[in-house]
């Protein structure tokens, strides 16, 4: 499986989508957008920080585990760090697979695991 993990302090740019093989039948994308309410309080945006080398390590292990469970051919992960205004994406995830079912399950599980123990934090400044 192709794994691409990127952290950026810039607005997320959707990476060009090249199919790793001709068996790809499903490309599932997820954009995590900063909403204007955080714990019911209005915000202008969120600050994100990461313990980047550990975040890469923990995330890659999760993605490899999920590959063993669901299969899938490629996953592209981008997390934005620093200040992210409301309405902009802090997270982008793309999963490619032969069939939609495993791609959707892989994506959902990957986000759940991200929120479990990948050392990235959002800090609201209200």
């Amino acid at each position, binding site marked *: 499986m192709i794994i691409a993990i990127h952290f950026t302090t810039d607005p997320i740019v959707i990476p060009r989508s090249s199919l790793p093989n001709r068996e790809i039948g499903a490309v599932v994308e997820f954009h995590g957008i900063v909403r204007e309410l955080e714990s019911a309080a209005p915000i202008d945006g969120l600050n994100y920080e990461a313990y980047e080398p550990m975040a890469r*390590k923990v995330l890659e292990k999760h993605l490899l585990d999920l590959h063993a469970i669901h299969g899938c051919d490629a996953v592209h992960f981008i997390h934005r760090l620093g200040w992210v205004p409301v309405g902009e994406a802090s997270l982008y995830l793309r999963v490619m697979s032969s069939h939609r079912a495993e791609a959707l399950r892989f994506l959902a599980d990957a986000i759940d695991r*991200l929120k479990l123990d990948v*050392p*990235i*934090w*959002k800090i609201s400044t209200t």
Partner: protein
Amino acid sequence: MPCSDSTHTGSMDESEITLLAFASARENLGFSTRSLAVNRAETPLDILRRIAPDANIENLRVALDCEFSDWHTPVGHARELAFIPPVSGG
């Protein structure tokens, strides 16, 4: 093998460890990174009690060289001890 290249400029004394504190841990402990001389038999809890005797460790995890560890395992030859509060990425 330390995992954060940025925290290791120049040679580090064998007895030194780099402490990293993120997000709410930084707020509570009052530092984001600092270097500390340690006894390699010390545990993360021993070290924390030395620098912040009253720190609340509830929900706080620790990592040694980017690997989750626990409060009671000696740091051994680890070069980096990170205090990891509950995560909230995504």
